[in-house]
Each structure stands twice: as structure tokens, then as C-alpha cells.
């Protein structure tokens, strides 16, 4: 049985934040869950996916976050407890249903989770999604610890049902990817079949209806404000003239700092866990007997601006600070020492930070950047496109996935990426705005997510570029989740459809469609060249399973290669494809037989044919 389905209340177990969140949903009796995977949220959905295979929980990997939220919206309006999770930028994709679902509301409890990524450990931006709660008028909860993340999940469903509103649960990477001991609670029974009751005056958002719904939405948020005022998640610790208002993981940095600095006696801390709507009265009361207030929040000045406005209304003239050159930054995540030092500086406490070690005599340490794996088909495709376009001035819009790494040398294939799907649509723009040849890259999962509409646009507006769809048969980057083109039977799961990308692309009206097997180098280059020379939209499908995924399914049967004596040390192999299985020993190129998967791309590049399979 899945460890998170274990029905033994009181049991203590070490859980990853994302596991605790999944467990919280299970304890709340969640019946319906949807997602599009994205770090740092991915392990929540992975665990729910696994649990759905051993229980009556419905879970789906949806095509993208907008689809996920709309699927979930229907379930929540059929009375089911519903959970929709995504990474922060995913909420941009789902913003359209998000904003109006707030008007419509729900009949079953619904939690939308946004996993923000301050410091951008694995994201393209570090936007602060707390503003979505304010923007869309949804109640928001923000945990400060792994254990609290589970408790908040449970409460979020109750809150949602009380207000008949979806609730936004906002985490940051340090919650999602921390481990801590969590105590299991009771698992509420799951109600897995709902009933939709027709209520067109609530559910059909024509202008006349929405005008009414907007009024109701504000009333609901008023009620939510009352709940926020008395919520246990908005807690005050200590008393004194120094006021600190804090949210999220920074709460623990503050607790530790106040103790370390010995100012527990004169410091009062307000931790906001139910942070939209803000508990206005609570905050005004908190401010009243403070001499000075410091607001500590990663990201934007979300609380600080509100707190300053409340102080103005309450006619309080006290210093309230947070974001500034001297104090806290809007960049990156915070850490305990930084919070300790800023608190000391702001309240005038004597504090000497630990002396830094001198970096004298430290030699340069070679970087260890991530790299495409040994035998990754993307490497082969990039090399081949580069060869085929040798004499062309090209622009390579790329997209979000492992293949974004193709922008690194020596491949250097990747010139522009802003969000999921942007490779295709930006190709449309580049091809019109310049005379350069545009050849762009998108993975299969990303193509389903948001590449299709761009391609429709390209065909309709008669653009001129070549799109390479990197069909590796899985969502590789986030840990091998399925997508609509995946053969689910290979995962041992039945009852799924499967979409053939080639048929889809042809049906969209793309006239020049070709398929390559990227491990056949010469033939692939020829096919690519032909596509590049075509005037109009051409699509190349580069088909080869992700090497890591193939390995995990035991589909890899090929054998390792070696460099034979014929090698005259041109190093074309190392210099042009930089596969991590290469190494240099005694001045000669060698191949690590333990990691080589036998794709044979290097063997086909070697002018001397010096790279040969190892005989068994």
C-alpha cells in the first residue's frame, strides 16, 4: 500500500513537503485531482498519481494547467473535493479560468496550489503568486513548515466549502522540498461521485450574470476577512515594542533569530498564514503598541504595502519597513543568517556575524553544470540541425524542458525562450520580422501543453519556419510523467487514449512533415536540410525515447562503444557533441562503458570510424 494511504492516525513519519501536502489532501477526503507537472510541485502529483492506482481517487495529468483547472472546476461544481496543483508559472497559463472561477465559485471544496520558486532553482522567473489571490479575490493560505502544509491542506477544503470559493494554497520551494516529521491524522471518507445541479444564474457567466456574481464575490471575501481575523493560522508570538510581521518559511528564520539575538522579551511576531484577505483589525491592533515594525517576506512587498496602508488608516506614525536597499531584497529566497542580521540592524541590536573564511589560496574549482544525458536523443537532433543549417543564418527559438540545455556550448542551439509553447509562436514573429532562417525546438509534452495553437497560427498566417518536435515519448524534465502522446500500456496502465503527433500536425494543415530517427545521423541531416529549404511551415518529428526513461523500462538493449586504435585524436566527437560518457585519459579520448548507452552518434561522426561497439 502507498505509504500516504496508511490509515494509522498518530503515526509519525518523515515526509517531503510535497508528500505532506498530498497526505493532507487525502486526509481531507480529496476525490478528484488534476495537474500539469512542474517543479517544485511535481512530487505532489506523482504521489497522487500513484495513490489513484490503488484507490478510488481520480487523478489526471492534464494537457496543461488551464485544462487542469477547468477539469477540476467541473468536479468541484459537481460537489467533489477537488485539488488542482501547479508550479507558479503554471498559474499564468490557468489564469483565465482562475479569475472567473472565483466569480462562479464551487459546491465541493476546491484547493488550487501554486508552488512558487524564489531563487529560481528550476524556473524561468520568480514571480510572487500571492498577488493572484488578491487579483482574483480568492482566500489564500501560506504554510511555514512541512507539518503545517499538511494541516493547511485539510483546513483549505473546509474553508473552501464554507465560502463556496476555491482556496489558493501558496507554497515556496523550501516547503515543497524540505523533509520533516509529520503526524498522520484521520483520513476522511472520499465522496467520489457528485451531481451537478443546474444553476445558470451562477454558472453561466454572461455579463448580466457576472455583474451579480462580482457583487457576491466581494461579499464572500468580506466573510473570508472575518475568518482571517480569527484564524489560528494568523498567530501572534511574544510581546514587546519590536514588531515583526512575517509569512512562509521566513517565520522560522525569525523565531530562530529572535532567540539567537536574545530579544525574545521585547519582540512581538505576527505570522500571517491566512494572508488573503489580510486580517485588518488584527494587524491594526498588533501595530498599536509597537515602536517599530519590520515586515519580512520573500518576493514582493505584498504584506508590507497592506500593513502601511492599515497604519495610515489607524493614524499610527511608526516606522514600518521591509523592502529597501539596506533591509530586505525583492530578489531570491532568504536565509537564517540574513534574517538575523537584518533584524539586529533594524532594531539596533549588537550582533557580530560569524567571520567568513578567507578564500585565499583556493584554486579555481571547475563548474559542474547540468548536461544532456549520455545517449540523449536531443543531443543528436541538435547536432544534426546544426550540420544541416551550416551555411544558414539561423535563429533557434527553443522551449521548456531538458532540451533547453541545448543552448549550452558546444551545441549552442537555443536563442529565445520565455514560456511553455513560446518556441512555436515566437518563430512566427521571427520569421516575419527578419530574413533569417528560423528553426525552433519543442518537446512532445510541451507541444501538447501549448505548442499546438502556435502551429495553427503559423499555418493560417502562412509563416515560414521549421519546427522540430522532439518526440522522446515522455515528460522527461520533471521526472517521466505521461502526456497525451505516451503509450500508457508501456507503463502498465490501461484505459487511456493516445494521440499521434504526426497525424495531428498533418491535420493542422502543415504540408511539409518529415520524421527522423536522430540516431541515424546522415539520413537525419539530409531530411532536415530538405525541411529547412521548404518555404512555409515545415515540421520535423525527431522520434527516439528518452534514454533515462528507456533505461527505467528496460527497453535499452544496445551496448557500449569504445574508441579503437584507429583514433587520430581529431576530437570531433568531444568537441561537437560533448556527450558526458567521453573522458580524456593520457591525452586520448575514451568512452565510459558504464554510462554509454550505445546511441552510436559519435561513431557516425568520427571521420576515422574509430569508434566501435564493444564486442561481447
Amino acid at each position, binding site marked *: 500500500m502507498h505509504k500516504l494511504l496508511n490509515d494509522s492516525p498518530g503515526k509519525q513519519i518523515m515526509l517531503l513537503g510535497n508528500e505532506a501536502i498530498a497526505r493532507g489532501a487525502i486526509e481531507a477526503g480529496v476525490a478528484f485531482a488534476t495537474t500539469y507537472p512542474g517543479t517544485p510541485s511535481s512530487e505532489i502529483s506523482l504521489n497522487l498519481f500513484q495513490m489513484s492506482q490503488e484507490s478510488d481517487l481520480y487523478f489526471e495529468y492534464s494537457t496543461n494547467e488551464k485544462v487542469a483547472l477547468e477539469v477540476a472546476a467541473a468536479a468541484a461544481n459537481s460537489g467533489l473535493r477537488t485539488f488542482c496543483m501547479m508550479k507558479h508559472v503554471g498559474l499564468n497559463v490557468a489564469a483565465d479560468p482562475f479569475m472567473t472561477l472565483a466569480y462562479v465559485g464551487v459546491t465541493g471544496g476546491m484547493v488550487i496550489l501554486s508552488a512558487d520558486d524564489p531563487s529560481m532553482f528550476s524556473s524561468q522567473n520568480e514571480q510572487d503568486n500571492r498577488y493572484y489571490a488578491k487579483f482574483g479575490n480568492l482566500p489564500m493560505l501560506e504554510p511555514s*513548515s512541512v507539518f503545517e502544509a499538511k494541516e493547511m491542506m485539510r483546513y483549505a477544503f473546509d474553508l473552501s466549502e464554507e465560502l463556496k470559493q476555491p482556496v489558493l494554497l501558496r507554497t515556496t520551494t523550501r516547503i515543497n*522540498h*524540505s*523533509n520533516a516529521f509529520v503526524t498522520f491524522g484521520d483520513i476522511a471518507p472520499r465522496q467520489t461521485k457528485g451531481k451537478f445541479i443546474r444553476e445558470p444564474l451562477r454558472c453561466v457567466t454572461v455579463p448580466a450574470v457576472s455583474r451579480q456574481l462580482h457583487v457576491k464575490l466581494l461579499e464572500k471575501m468580506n466573510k473570508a476577512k472575518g475568518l482571517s481575523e480569527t484564524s489560528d493560522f494568523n498567530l501572534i508570538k511574544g510581546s514587546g515594542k519590536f514588531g515583526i510581521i512575517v509569512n512562509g518559511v521566513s517565520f522560522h528564520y525569525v523565531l530562530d533569530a529572535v532567540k539567537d539575538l536574545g530579544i525574545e522579551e521585547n519582540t512581538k511576531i505576527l505570522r500571517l498564514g491566512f494572508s488573503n484577505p489580510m486580517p485588518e483589525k488584527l494587524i491594526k491592533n498588533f501595530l498599536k503598541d509597537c515602536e517599530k515594525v519590520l515586515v519580512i517576506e520573500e518576493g514582493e512587498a505584498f504584506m508590507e504595502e497592506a500593513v502601511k496602508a492599515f497604519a495610515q488608516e489607524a493614524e499610527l506614525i511608526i516606522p514600518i519597513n521591509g523592502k529597501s536597499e539596506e533591509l530586505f531584497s525583492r530578489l531570491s529566497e532568504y536565509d*537564517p*543568517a540574513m534574517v538575523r542580521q537584518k533584524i539586529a540592524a533594524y532594531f539596533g541590536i549588537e550582533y557580530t556575524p560569524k567571520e567568513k573564511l578567507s578564500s585565499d589560496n*583556493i584554486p579555481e*574549482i*571547475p563548474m559542474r553544470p547540468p548536461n544532456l544525458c549520455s545517449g540523449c536523443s536531443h543531443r543528436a537532433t541538435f547536432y544534426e540541425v546544426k550540420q544541416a543549417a551550416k551555411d544558414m543564418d539561423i535563429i533557434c527559438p527553443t522551449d521548456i524542458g531538458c532540451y533547453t540545455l541545448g543552448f549550452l556550448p558546444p551545441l549552442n542551439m537555443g536563442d529565445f525562450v520565455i514560456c511553455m509553447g513560446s518556441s512555436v509562436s515566437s518563430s512566427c514573429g521571427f520569421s516575419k520580422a527578419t530574413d533569417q532562417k528560423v528553426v525552433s525546438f519543442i518537446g512532445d509534452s510541451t507541444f501538447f501543453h501549448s505548442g499546438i495553437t502556435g502551429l495553427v497560427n503559423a499555418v493560417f498566417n502562412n509563416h515560414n519556419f521549421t519546427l522540430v518536435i522532439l518526440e522522446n515519448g515522455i515528460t522527461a524534465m520533471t521526472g517521466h510523467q505521461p502526456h497525451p502522446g505516451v503509450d500508457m500500456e508501456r507503463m502498465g496502465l490501461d484505459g487511456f487514449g493516445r494521440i499521434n503527433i504526426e497525424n495531428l500536425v498533418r491535420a493542422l494543415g502543415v504540408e511539409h512533415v518529415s520524421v527522423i530517427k536522430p540516431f541515424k545521423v546522415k539520413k537525419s541531416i539530409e531530411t532536415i536540410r530538405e525541411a529547412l529549404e521548404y518555404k512555409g511551415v515545415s515540421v520535423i518529428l525527431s522520434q527516439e525515447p528518452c534514454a533515462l526513461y528507456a533505461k527505467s523500462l528496460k527497453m535499452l538493449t544496445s551496448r557500449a562503444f569504445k574508441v579503437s586504435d584507429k583514433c587520430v585524436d581529431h576530437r570531433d566527437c568531444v568537441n561537437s557533441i560533448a556527450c558526458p560518457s*567521453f573522458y580524456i585519459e593520457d591525452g586520448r579520448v575514451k568512452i565510459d562503458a558504464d554510462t554509454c548507452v550505445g546511441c552510436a552518434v559519435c561513431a557516425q561522426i568520427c571521420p576515422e570510424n574509430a569508434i566501435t561497439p564493444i564486442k561481447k
Partner: protein
Amino acid sequence: METTRLIMVAVGGQGNLLASKVLGEAALISGVQVQMSEIHGMAQRGGVVESAIVFGKATSSIISDGEADILLGFEPAETLRALNRCSKDTKVITNTATLPPFTVSIGKGVYPDVENIKELLKEKCASLIAIDAMKLAKEAGTPMSVNIVLLGALVQSGGLSFTKENVIEAIKRRTKKSFLDMNLNAFELGFKAAAQS
């Protein structure tokens, strides 16, 4: 109890996340509070994996630069890279077996001299235990047990407030049954090597 802050750095695939889980379990068995955080951005693609483990009173789950009490490095260049996490009071334990980054393997970067790394760590930090964990892991039966060899060295170093027996119990609970004998062997080899280091 007082707070002990441990940083573990490794290269993707060396098993430091499992090592963290074992230490977490050992803390549970010992009744010690623990907070752990990990950064494993693109570990499978050859990057660096770092875990921060905070034992004791502190409630923060990450460790600031200069504030690690113990640094456990699974790879010597990565240990050196993590020196900014240390102070002159930090105890350092490192594997001496190298895993050169790809840039070095193809001759486009220079791997620092391991003896020099040891000298620097010894000179700048409070103490150093340096062992060839790969050699010991192979001796224990599998190169996969490098992480457990290093746990043995960590426990021997005395920086943690729980007993050897509790860590062994945690290994029994947290690692695969088929590897158990090799792991217990690996733990002992690491423990002994650290005593002689």
C-alpha cells in the same frame, strides 16, 4: 539539546538524499528534532545535490553560508566548493575519491589537486577526516554504498548527538533489504577508517 547544522554535498547519483533520510530516521529514533532541506535541481543530469540537516532546537530548515557545524562532502572538489558554508569551527569530512566534472574529463578544465584540497580544508576549518569512501564501498560489496561509508565516518567523528546503534537501526529501516549486509559492512568500514584518519 543545542543545534547542530550539517551540510551534505554530492554529485547527482551518489545517494546523499538517501543518506539524509537515514539521518532523519536516526534522529526520530533518538528523539532529536530535525529539519531537512534539499536542492536537487537537475541532479539526474550531472548537477550538484545539496542537503541541509538541522538537528536540535533551531526550527529553520536551511543553513546559511558560514554556519555549517559539519560539512560532509561526497566528492573532494564539491567539498571544497562548499567551503563558503563553513567557518573556522566547522568539522569537515570528505571522500577523497574524485568524480571529475565533464569539462575536466574532456580536458577543458583543471581538477584541483586532492592533497591540496585536504591541506586547505585542514588549514581553514576545525578538523578534517578524509577517507577514500569509494574504495571502502567497493570493499563492502558495492560502489553504491559510498553514502553509507560516509555516514559511518560522520558518526565516528562525534559531531552528532545520537548513538552508532541508532544510526544502524535507521539504516536497517531505510535502505533496501537486499543491500543491508553490504550497507552495514560499509558503515563499519567508514566508521573505522574515520577513526584512523
